[in-house]
């Protein structure tokens, strides 16, 4: 019951198409979530950020650029 009540927060840079919605739904479902709240933030430049509870999956272009910046 507790797992099914989890909601995932999803950030994307542009409005997702059906394929993305489907893939994200499958991804969060595997992690105990049955719904997602989407936010469109162009500042992430691309990719996706998913927050499930305390867990954050960051696949945004901005985070990759930050990784490169730290590496440099």
């Amino acid at each position: 019951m507790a797992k099914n009540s989890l909601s995932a927060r999803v950030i994307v840079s542009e409005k997702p198409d059906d394929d993305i919605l489907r893939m994200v739904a499958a991804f969060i479902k595997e992690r105990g979530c049955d719904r997602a709240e989407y936010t469109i933030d162009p500042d992430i430049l691309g990719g996706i950020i998913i927050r499930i509870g305390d867990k954050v999956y960051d696949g945004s272009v901005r985070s990759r650029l930050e990784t490169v910046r730290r590496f440099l």
Partner: protein
Amino acid sequence: MFDFTAETMLLSAITDMFDRMGITWSGILLHLINLVILTVGLYLLLFKPVKKMIRERQEKVKKIEKENADLNEEVKELKDSSRKVLSEAKQEAAVIHDNAVKVANQKAGEIVGDAKTRAKALIERTEAEMEAERKKMQTDVEQQIADVSLAVAEKVLGRSVSGEDNRRLIEESLKEWSERENG
């Protein structure tokens, strides 16, 4: 053989001549006594004191000469002594001079050595500071280049990430996360 007659005649002739000159044997004797008295008086009153004075003067002269000789000897000794003292003073001055020169050279060497050490340390510190500054500048420049490059990349990516690229990025991210968590 003694000719008594001739002698008597000679004496008689002399007596006769003395009579004619008014000279008598008593007068001669008196004159002789006077002469003796005069001689003794002169000897006692004049010759002896003068002789004594001369002797005293001679002794005084000898004493002065001796004093002069002593003084000359003393002067000579003083000269020798002063010459010796002067020589020793010169030698001592030479030793002091040599020591002073030696100490001065040693001091100069120490000062030069210290200055060289300080200069070397200063050069090394300056070189280290320059190297650190160069590395810092290099790092700053590299950082600025990276920042500018990333800023440019952000601008370019913000405009050029297409919908297909974005979809592929999302798909790859989801796949990667799933594989990582599923082992």
